[in-house]
């Protein structure tokens, strides 16, 4: 076994690999760029080597710099993680030449799977199902109909030179195929001056399901079942799970066996992933093979109990796989939510800055499952603009899918991240979405269910009542503490009442609290009641309660006579008032937010260092517009709301006074 390995990566995956290496008693070497000087993976590794400036193109993906670090530290093997050099044939070859083990597949396999057309041909030859289609020329409409019916409807008729939806038709029968062929051809000729047409199978209700394979250097190849990764936003995976709620055992076995066949065909070793697109009838078609450890590998680890990184290292060291296909069973269900530093309320704009608070949920076994969080950041750390915005992968495991989802809901609600925008509320909204919980998902889920982006969710009536009961009980605790202040009048202290009105999400709940030593019973006017117990105390930002015996977790902050609360993708202001105060509060006028100016004004006297946008640009709320230097400090001015830049008045180098107009918006 290796004594020392180098991890040619950063962030959560570097930390992930270091953890396993440490468990195996292997020393680790981290590499880091300027921006990562204080990064988590650097602190976790036994040694760290600086490899250059912040941009990855000048550090993490420069083969020579990694090779230099390998030589300098005497590492015997390199784990590439994902991204960066993980699928770079040249890198694998350079390591081979230097006699250093690459913890991944042979460079030949990387090469063969690296090209979409080549990989598809190899897959076809290996008996892997690929999207059926006709690449040759089509004579006329009748020919088109004949080919289409051979492929099987529905089919997609496409212009060879096509793009942007032009010259594209979907046909469900012969008539439509004839018509579609003709209109596609005409449109293609008009649009591209090239009327060549081809036909392929149209995959309806597509899902992205992939098979994890693992091979050793002794010819053993197994599959570790599938992962469903259909929840994607613009091809970026957001939520993954294993197993898929859609596959039956026969399909799973067929996909697994084909994936192994493909791996065998290219002499694959180490961990790899064969991606398939699966239609509504469980027909599956090969997409591509990723010749590396996949981001979402933890869900596979959670249902199989296999540490994939450990097996990758053992395989690279020449050890045989310790299990056979028949040993690999699916145990329970695992979910993964990717935490991105992207602000869902600002159209998922990347958000950078200081993580003023970062408290993931406690990892390890819970009452009914397991929580795991693969992370590469820490509280007080900086999220920089140089790298992938994914900062953590929160995973849960439980015996069933429904339970794994419930574990995930609680884990998401327990995850505290402040200082940057992030997608936790969005993940929570997906977990509560009825279509997601039903398992009826496709790759179009986010586009279909959140067509206008994300503006937060509303709590369902049942949750809302539970929240109202919890807030009433919490408020009572806070108010009682206020009465315990020093300097009160003897014998005339304030008595905290039992009657309260909780106003949240536009609804008012009149409640009566019966408190005892162990908690509170909160009575509603309709005669129902909720039992609230908790050790929450004022000032705690994370409130963990039991309402009628089941967990309710929310992030709370104090606002005047109430709380700001965040849970289940909702971000709400709630007020808890005495009945009289609630009555008087109704007299307050609703105020419309003031019209913020159409100008970006200079907030201080200073020098314009740079302007980040130009006239005509569309800007998102929070986007950086310009940088002004004052008192030798660079201050980034950001858009207060969405808009379009009409005119930029200030140029870099200009010296501005307070309230000078930097730019105007439409």
């Amino acid at each position, binding site marked *: 076994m290796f004594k020392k390995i180098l991890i040619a990566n950063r962030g959560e995956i570097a930390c992930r690999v270091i953890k396993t290496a440490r468990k195996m008693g292997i020393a680790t070497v981290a590499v880091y760029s300027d921006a990562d*000087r*204080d990064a988590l993976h650097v602190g976790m590794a036994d040694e760290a080597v600086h490899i250059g400036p912040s941009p990855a193109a000048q550090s993490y993906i420069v083969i020579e710099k990694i090779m230099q670090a390998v030589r300098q530290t005497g590492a015997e093997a390199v784990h590439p993680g994902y991204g960066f050099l993980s699928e770079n044939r040249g890198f694998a070859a350079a390591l081979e030449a230097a006699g250093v083990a690459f913890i991944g597949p042979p460079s030949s396999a990387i090469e063969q799977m690296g090209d979409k057309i080549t990989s598809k041909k190899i897959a076809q030859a290996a008996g892997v199902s690929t999207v059926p289609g006709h690449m040759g020329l089509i004579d006329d409409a009748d020919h088109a109909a004949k080919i289409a019916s051979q492929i099987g409807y529905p089919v997609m008729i496409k212009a060879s030179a096509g793009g942007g939806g032009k010259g594209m038709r979907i046909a469900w029968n012969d008539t439509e195929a004839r018509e579609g062929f003709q209109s596609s051809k005409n449109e293609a000729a008009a649009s591209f001056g090239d009327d060549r047409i081809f036909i392929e199978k149209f995959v309806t209700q597509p899902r992205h399901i992939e098979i994890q394979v693992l091979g050793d250097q002794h010819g053993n190849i197994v599959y570790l079942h599938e992962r469903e990764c259909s929840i994607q936003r613009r091809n970026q995976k957001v939520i993954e799970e294993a197993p898929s709620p859609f596959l039956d055992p026969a399909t799973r076995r067929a996909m697994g066996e084909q994936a192994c066949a493909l791996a065998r065909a290219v002499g694959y070793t180490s961990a790899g992933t064969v991606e398939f697109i699966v239609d509504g009838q469980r027909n599956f078609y090969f997409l591509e093979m990723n010749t590396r450890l996949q981001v979402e590998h933890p869900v596979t680890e959670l249902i199989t109990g296999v540490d994939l990184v450990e097996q990758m290292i053992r395989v690279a060291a020449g050890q045989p796989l310790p299990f056979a296909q028949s040993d690999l069973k699916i145990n329970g269900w695992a979910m993964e939510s990717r935490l991105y530093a992207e602000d869902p309320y600002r159209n998922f704009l990347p958000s950078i800055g*200081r*993580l*003023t*608070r970062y408290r993931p949920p406690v990892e390890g076994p819970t009452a009914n499952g397991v929580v795991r969080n693969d992370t590469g950041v*820490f*509280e*007080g*750390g*900086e999220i920089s603009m140089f790298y992938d915005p994914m900062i953590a992968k929160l995973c849960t495991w439980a015996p069933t899918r429904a339970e794994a989802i419930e574990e995930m809901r609680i884990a998401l609600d327990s995850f505290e991240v402040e200082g940057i925008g992030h997608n936790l509320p969005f993940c929570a909204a997906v977990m509560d979405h009825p279509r997601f919980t039903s398992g009826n998902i496709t790759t179009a889920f986010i586009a279909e269910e959140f067509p206008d982006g994300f503006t937060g969710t509303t709590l369902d009536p049942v949750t809302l009542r539970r929240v109202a009961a919890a807030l009433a009980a919490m408020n009572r605790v806070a108010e009682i*503490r*206020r*009465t*315990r*202040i*020093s*300097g*009160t*009048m003897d014998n*005339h*202290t*304030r008595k905290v*009442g039992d009657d309260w009105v909780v106003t949240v999400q536009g609804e008012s709940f009149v409640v009566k609290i019966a408190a005892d030593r162990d908690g509170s019973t909160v009575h509603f006017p309709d005669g129902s009641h909720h039992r609230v117990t908790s050790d929450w*105390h*004022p*000032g*705690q*930002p994370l409130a963990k309660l039991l309402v009628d015996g089941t967990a309710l977790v929310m992030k709370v902050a*104090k606002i*005047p*006579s109430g709380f700001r609360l965040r849970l289940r993708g909702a971000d709400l202001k709630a007020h808890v008032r*005495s009945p*009289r*105060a609630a009555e*008087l*509060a109704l*007299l*307050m*006028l609703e*105020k419309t937010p003031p019209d913020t100016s159409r100008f970006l004004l200079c907030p*201080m*006297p200073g020098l314009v260092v740079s302007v980040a946008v130009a006239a005509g640009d569309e800007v998102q709320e929070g986007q950086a517009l310009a940088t002004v230097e*004052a*008192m*030798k*400090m*660079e*201050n980034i001015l950001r858009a207060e709301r969405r808009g379009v830049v009409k005119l930029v008045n200030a140029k870099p180098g200009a010296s501005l006074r307070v309230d000078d107009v930097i730019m105007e918006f439409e």
Partner: protein
Amino acid sequence: MHDILSQLEARRSTARQGGGARRISAQHAKGKLTARERIELLLDEGSFEEFDMFVTHRCTDFGMDAERPAGDGVVTGWGTVNGRMVYVFAQDFTVMGGSVSETHGAKICKIMDMAVQNGAPVIGINDSGGARIQEGVASLAAYGEVFQRNVLASGVVPQISLIMGPCAGGAVYSPAMTDFIFMVKDSSYMFVTGPDVVKTVTNEVVTAEDLGGASTHTKKSSVADAAFENDVEALAETRRLIDFLPLNNREKPPVRPFFDDPARIEPSLDTLIPANPNQPYDMKELITKLADEGDFFEIQAAFACNIITGFIRLEGQTVGVVANQPMVLAGCLDIDSSRKAARFVRFCDAFEIPILTLVDVPGFLPGVAQEHDGVIKHGAKLLYAFGEATVPRVTVITRKAYGGAYVVMASKHLRADFNYAWPTAEIAVMGAKGAVEILYRSELGDPEKTAQRTADYEQRFANPFVAAEKGFVDEVIMPHSTRRRICRAFASLRGKKQTNPWKKHDNIPL
């Protein structure tokens, strides 16, 4: 007998109606509460004890004798806020527009006298059309009596003014002399002369809101200390402020049970100071991470944002915080920030509230406008305020402490009790670049030499150890243990007694 008792009930009932249902509806339609409703929300439920409910005015001119409403447009009395005694007056706009008569003024004076005698804060709720013109000079005299009491109560009991409607003309000078002024957005304004007079005299056209609304006074004039969305929120936040304040100048600040470990370690503070010395960071993160439960009541949050002032608790006890804010103007001192902080320091000192000073100051703001507007005199106010303070004081230098501003910001030389510095602190006369430009003027043509000189200066002075060697810094502390260190420091100062030489009063550079 029964008749006599019911007569009292009838008279009370009439008095409680104020200006009657029609005027109350008009008040409500503006989103404003009535005087009695405001008092209800300000005080603990059922704790209000009213004075002078049946007082009526004595004016007979201009037909005034036809109407003598009980209470005369102001509701006065005392009650409790979370069990602690406060005195309160609330002008009733529904009764003669809340105008101030001789008797109206006398009612306010009565509770102010009792507040000073019994050592409890005075909370004034202002919603008044101004002087009662029919009474002439008697009305002015009433204002004068109130002003005089504001002055005498100053520094004896906390005085808080809530502006919840108009407050114009001479009337503004009573709130102006109180410790804190809170306004309600869109429904309150304060000015000495209104838009009409301004138009006549200077030809400036301005709305009441622009001239003296909550936004103007919290952002531009600094007359007000905070602005709130509506009456209900303003009253709730006033209760919250009172929880921070001592009842009078003979009492210690209040203590209440807390749920936060005084020894709490904050590893994230070790990375608060950016590697680049010219990059700002948010000082408020430090304040909320030091405070019990992250609870911070900021005063003048929207004005002179290069300095932060407000109240936190440490081990349950109130502490006033003064902190430079590197996010705004690099945290420099200037006229506005000096005035803002000086007034806050003097309030804390007057009421025995310990002061925590967090320092990251590159110096005083240079500029013609600053000099011509008197930064010398205004900057001196903060220096003076820190210099005369005798309350327990702890100072933490996080980064820059340059030049005269270093001395001003509660340095050891101004009798601060504990002066801590983070390892990132740089205590020097100025930044290295500026220093080299003066010290080695003749070598400025040689960039290599200059760079070397700058590096040398940084090496020598851009650290806390030179000051620590001289004892100007008591200890260099780890950022992550700052809460524990300052909690222990303040705990050790609970018995502090320090007096200044006898004087009639001081002569702060006003």
